[in-house]
Structure formats: C-alpha cells, structure tokens
C-alpha cells in the first residue's frame, strides 16, 4: 500500500528507480518469485508495460508458463492475505468495494488459531479474492465496527462508503466449525451489494463531512499534491 509503510515505500522507490522522497502514488511491475528479478518494465501502472488488457493477460500467461509452480501452487497459500492494520483494512475494503473479515482474539496464539481456521476457506475457489482481511488482539481496533459482540472471533463487516466505519453483518465464535464459517461467509456475500461511487462527489462530500485520510508516510506524488491543493482552493471559493 503506497504511503502506509516506510519499508514498502523504499522498496517501491527501488522498483521505479525514482529519486528518494518522490514516490508517486501508484506503482506497477512484474517480478520473479525472488522479489527482485524484474519481468517487465516498471511504471505507474500496467500501461507502462502492456499496450492493453489483452496484451497483459497474454504476457501474464507467458510468464506463468515459465514458472511451473505458478499454476501448481495456485490457491494453496500458507497464510491469510492480511492487511496489517484493521483501520487500513477497512479503508481498503471500502476502496475495493469488498466485504471485510476481521479476526480477533485476546492473545496472539489464539488469534493465529482463528486465522488458521479461515485459511483453507480464504483460498477456496468460492471465496478467494472476495474479502479483505484484518486481524487484531486490540479491542480498540474494533470500535469503528458497529454491532461487534464480545467473545466473537470472526467478524464479517460491510465497509461504510468512506472506510472509516463499518457494520458487522455476521460474527462467529472461535469454536465455530469450518462448515458454519463457510455458510456465514456465503450468506454475507449473497446479501452484499457493492456501492456505486462517483469519484468527484465522493471527494466533495468527504471534504464537507470532514473525512480525511492521513497516510503513515507523507504523500510525495507532486501531481496529486498539486491536485489536492487546487481542489481545496476551488472548494473554498465555492463556499
């Protein structure tokens, strides 16, 4: 996630080969499994490496063919695809228009056991890619999630439009069986209706409501910083 972790920021700078402290807000590159071998040009998006979506799909198929394990090991990951902070996971779920699953427990070993219980379901054909995942041992992290009951370990959350709050639509105890979890996730997905967002009015209303996101690393995309200043100046004039 751009601007949410300094180590990631430095890594992305290396991938793009930009001057220190000037990382743009989007980054793209195809890399080998070692995480260092470049398999494509890097840039702000896939269009730096591929002419269009068909060319990208074709290029990805060619790359996958060079790595036999790519197909063999698909959907058999050893960990949940966690976003490292619950507040960030909630925001990402809102940005992606996906539901959020938050696992919670009083201590790390118990949390690991809950995450382990979700693992095979999270990488199943039915659910892979359908949820964003967050995990925490801190009750304070659950405050933005309305409806959280005590002693529940798996929370299925519908993110709010700005990703700063969410509504718990299903919750299960740590003792829930895989079948119970599977049924709860399937039911939640069936009911979930992704929001339709208009970019411009979303931003305008966000400013009006005083909702702003503060990244961990200060934004260094000059184009975006200028656009933000111009947008706010126009808004002040209209008020």
């Amino acid at each position, binding site marked *: 996630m751009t601007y949410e972790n300094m180590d990631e920021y430095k890594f992305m700078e290396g991938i793009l080969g930009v001057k220190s402290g000037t990382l743009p*807000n989007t980054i793209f590159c195809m890399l080998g499994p070692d995480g260092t071998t470049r398999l494509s040009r890097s840039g702000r998006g896939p269009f730096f490496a591929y002419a269009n979506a068909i060319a990208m799909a074709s290029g990805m198929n060619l790359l996958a063919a060079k790595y036999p394990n790519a197909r063999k090991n698909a959907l058999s990951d050893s960990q949940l695809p966690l976003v490292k902070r619950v507040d960030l996971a909630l925001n990402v779920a809102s940005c992606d228009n996906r539901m959020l699953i938050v696992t919670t427990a009083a201590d790390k070993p118990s949390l690991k056991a809950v995450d382990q219980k979700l693992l095979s379901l999270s990488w199943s*054909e039915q659910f892979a*890619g*359908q949820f964003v995942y967050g995990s925490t041992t801190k009750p304070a992290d659950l405050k933005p999630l309305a409806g959280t009951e005590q002693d529940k370990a798996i929370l299925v959350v519908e993110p709010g439009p700005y990703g700063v709050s969410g509504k718990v639509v299903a919750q299960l105890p740590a003792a829930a069986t895989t079948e119970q979890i599977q049924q709860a996730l399937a039911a939640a997905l069936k009911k979930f209706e992704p929001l339709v967002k208009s970019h411009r009015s979303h931003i305008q209303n966000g400013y009006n409501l005083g909702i702003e996101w503060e990244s961990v690393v200060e934004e260094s995309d000059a184009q975006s910083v200028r*656009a933000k200043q111009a947008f706010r100046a126009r808004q002040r004039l209209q008020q």
Partner: protein
Amino acid sequence: MKRISTIALVLLVAAGSLAQAEQNPIPRIAWYGNLTDGLAEAKRSGRPILLVSGAPSCLGVPGVW
C-alpha cells in the same frame, strides 16, 4: 488528479482459477495487502509477482483509490 488503479500485491495463479465465488458473480483478484507477506508467499510457492501499489485515498479522502 491522481489516478489510482488498485492495491498491493498479487501472486500469479492459473488463469481462470481466481475468485469466482458461487454466491457472488463478480470475479475478484486475491491481493496481498502487504509487501512482506506477499514476497514471502512468492518465495515459498515459486509464483511470480504482479506488483501493484496504490494509496487508499484520493485527494486525501478515503474510500476510493
């Protein structure tokens, strides 16, 4: 204005095997939301990496890329 496509990191998997949920017709990419875990999984599984990073806000407002 910045243009942000999508988040973090995804490992290449077989075409057609991604995220077709029975209860939800929208296919989704199974992204890794942090670099450390994504790189570790790529090494473990031998899968190449599609690295895409974006900021989860637009002009400072969250809820959109």
